[in-house]
């Protein structure tokens, strides 16, 4: 190909990486819960939605300053998730994982109804106070969306922070121990329930941040919850229990999705962006079901 347009290609890749990192942030919520409780939280997308709606409602409808709206949303997610852990999830400890998963699916349905019920069904804008004129890099006119850039930076900060937490800090190591074995952790004097609560709180905070970032891109309404489904390929690709996996998985999905949109869509008339990540996910499940960085579980019989 003589006329291969490198500028276009680069632009697709770069913005794919940025979007991918923003996916990673949402996916981190799944990983946090899975790492400590072994359950998959199907309501993670709804957490993002509720957090986004709260910010949107506070800022756009009630006219609060953005920082206050975001703090309120983060605070709500913390309180909500602590309450959730106490009332719904704690009684489930020791039950089959399927029971916990079903509970989160029910919770997702509940939240999808509660959002519009309390805050109305309309789409609200969520405007971050940054200039959204594209940043242009180099002679090839690589356009970058500043919101993508901000979102990706926030995502990287959070991912590094949690990476440090799990690898280096005492509480993080204890949390990995809890994920490894509840029983042995208790014998070490670890209060397992408190770490479950901590995991849910962290997932809530991550969801709130995700809600702000994705809400500012897409606007906030119940559709925001779909992001939870969209990041499934990210989590499966990277491995359910790996933070590194989440980053790499996010970048791969973001780039593949963008390249598909750039090169395949014009040929077939659009829509490839939406399904290519799932094709990747299915291939992954066929050949490496624990993901790129996941921990294979070997059962002794």
């Amino acid at each position, binding site marked *: 190909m003589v006329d291969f347009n490198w500028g276009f290609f680069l632009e697709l890749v770069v913005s794919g990486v940025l979007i991918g990192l923003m996916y990673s942030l949402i996916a981190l919520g799944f990983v946090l819960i899975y790492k400590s409780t072994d359950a998959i939280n199907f309501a993670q997308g709804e957490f993002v939605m509720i957090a986004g709606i709260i910010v949107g409602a506070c800022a756009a409808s009630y006219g609060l300053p953005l920082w206050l709206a975001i703090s309120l949303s983060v605070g709500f997610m913390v309180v909500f998730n602590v309450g959730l852990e106490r009332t719904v999830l704690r009684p489930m400890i020791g039950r089959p994982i399927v029971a916990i998963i079903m509970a989160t699916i029910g919770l997702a349905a509940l939240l999808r109804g509660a959002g519009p019920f309390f805050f109305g069904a309309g789409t609200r804008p969520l405007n971050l106070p940054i200039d959204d004129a594209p940043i242009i890099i180099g002679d090839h006119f690589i356009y970058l969306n500043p919101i993508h850039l901000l979102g990706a930076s926030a995502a990287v900060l959070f991912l590094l922070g949690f990476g440090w937490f799990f690898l280096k800090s*005492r509480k993080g*190591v204890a949390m*990995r121990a809890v994920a*490894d074995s509840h*029983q042995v*952790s208790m*014998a070490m004097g670890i209060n397992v329930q408190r770490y479950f609560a901590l995991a849910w709180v962290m997932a809530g905070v991550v969801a709130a941040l995700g809600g702000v970032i994705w809400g500012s891109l897409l606007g906030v309404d119940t559709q925001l919850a779909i992001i939870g489904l969209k990041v499934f390929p990210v989590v499966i690709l990277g491995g359910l229990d790996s933070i590194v996996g989440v980053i790499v998985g996010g970048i791969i999905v973001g780039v593949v999705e963008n390249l598909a949109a750039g090169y395949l869509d014009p040929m077939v008339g659009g829509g490839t962006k939406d399904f290519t990540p799932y094709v990747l996910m299915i291939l992954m499940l066929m050949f490496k079901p624990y993901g790129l960085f996941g921990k294979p579980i070997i059962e002794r019989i």
Partner: protein
Amino acid sequence: MPDGMNRGPDDGPALSVEGVSKNFGGVRAVSGVSTAVRRGEVFAIIGPNGAGKTTLLNMVSGFYKPDQGAIRFRDRDIGRMKPNQIAKLGIARTFQNIALFRGLTVLDNLMLGRHVRLKSGVFSSLLYWGPAQKEEICHRRRCEEIIDFLKLSDLRKTPAGALAYGLQKRVELGRALASDPTLLLLDEPMAGMNQEEKEDMVRYVLDVSAEWGTTIVLIEHDMGVVMDISDRVAVLDMGEKIAEGTPDEVRAAPKVIQAYLGTAH
């Protein structure tokens, strides 16, 4: 550190089990067992498979609640307490099947053993700041002492899952020691080891007892080991205690010969 209080059998038992029973469905795993472990002694629990030894240990460490009877640790009723609360009182245990955190390094496993001694809260430890940092250094020092004691210096950064079986058992002992327990429960610490590894482990167990005065309760199948290192032995069979005493007394008890030593095992 365990102090002088730990010594001296006159000071009341370290652990007493009073008429404890535990059923699983229709199976009577432990039935009306009473015994007392003196401070500072090495106390062995032996018996054929399914005799209820591990069940008894699980009740002491809080994983099972006894259906009847009381368990007292230094005159405190621990029968209804949760495992993490019991661990905080100074009871540490190892498991029959190695239960290390396989993905964590040897040092991190030991540091987790010190978890019960952690005082700083979530926030200061998240920030790794001020008291949390000072505390960490102090815990680290204690872990290094144990690493030296168990001759694990070269392996402190190795993931526990990558170690040989005998070494993993040793790390598990180290993790239990890291909490500075006054009562150490060992569930088959020598199971599956070769002769050399067993001799090492015996030496470590005796050293722990001699150096820190830690009270040790162990379950073990190797009769030679049990008779060598224990001050006293209790024998369980079918959930009931059939004998208790010094190794020689137990060896001579007719019920024991019939139930345990006489049968091929």
